[in-house]
């Protein structure tokens, strides 16, 4: 499933990386400890987090994640957006908490088979 479809289904606010929404999402990971995400997220995953520090971009880039969704309307720091644009990582914001976003994306991905 492409990121674009998740953006539409969850009405996400795309804050940067609009040109890369045709990327394929292979799974997802939810977590705020970057050390944990570095250890457990896989290539092509969409990452759901409340961390807004610029290091999230480096982690997403390193692990070749599809994109980052910030929960609870958390606002990305300006340097986070700047880096994400440069690293071609889509950053999206949702008003929902992590549990609900994760559940909805899980359903989308599994029903897409």
């Amino acid at each position, binding site marked *: 499933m492409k990121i674009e479809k998740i953006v539409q289904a969850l009405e996400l606010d795309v804050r940067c990386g609009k040109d890369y929404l045709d990327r394929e999402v292979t799974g997802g990971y939810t977590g705020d400890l*970057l*050390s944990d995400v570095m250890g457990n997220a896989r290539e092509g995953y969409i990452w759901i987090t409340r*961390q807004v*520090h610029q290091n999230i971009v*480096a982690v997403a880039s390193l692990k070749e994640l599809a994109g980052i969704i910030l929960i609870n309307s958390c606002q990305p720091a300006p340097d986070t957006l700047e880096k994400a644009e440069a690293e071609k990582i889509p950053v999206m914001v949702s008003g929902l908490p992590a549990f609900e976003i994760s559940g909805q994306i899980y359903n989308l991905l599994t029903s897409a088979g």
Partner: protein
Amino acid sequence: MLKVFNCDLHIHTCLSPCADLDIHPRALVEKALEKNLDMIAISDHNASANVRYVMAAAAGKNIQIIPAMEITTSEEVHLLALFGSLTDLLKLQSVIDQHLFGENDETRFGVQAIVNELGEVEELNNQLLIGATDLAIDDTVGIIHQLGGLAIPAHIDRESFSVLSQLGFIDDNAHFDALEISKLTGIRQGRLQYHELNRYPFVTSSDAHFIRDIGTSTTKILMEQPSLTELIMAFSGQDGRRILEQKC
């Protein structure tokens, strides 16, 4: 003349909810003297009300007190802030107070006692000191530096509340003055483990929450006298001042 000073730059008092009630200012200073410490930083979680009493307990004694705080940033990173004066620390406190929310629950998190140099309880702090501020780490470092202080991420080798557990790595734009390695790892092992961080000075401290912990891990620093100004010079290796890593 340069001399080696024995420093423990991370000690809690009974104001921290997770610290023992016995670690009150007078007892803390007595133990620090017994352990031959020359300079200690008093760093409670998001609080500072006991620092003046530790300074009062240490007045006229052969030990220097660095006013400090262990701030919890919005990323839940523990960040030490060290200052040259109590006034500067209190300025930081007024900022922290605007960014820390919630009330303490003594039965769950512990008592937060403000105790004077005579060992008398002055009052109980009812802020949720165990909680996190809503200040981002980079902004917090900026505030500390504006006030003339030093910003040192605490126990970077720990799996919780450390800059590495929360943020994965330390990026090149970070402006930390030094990094603290916990006593479980120590500086020598820390250097092997974190060779990519070799641009930073390392310190190690007791992070004492109990009287018996004080001075159990210290940093030996070559400087002219125990003070924040000299510590700043030691971190940047000015005029022969430096951290003596081999002896730790």
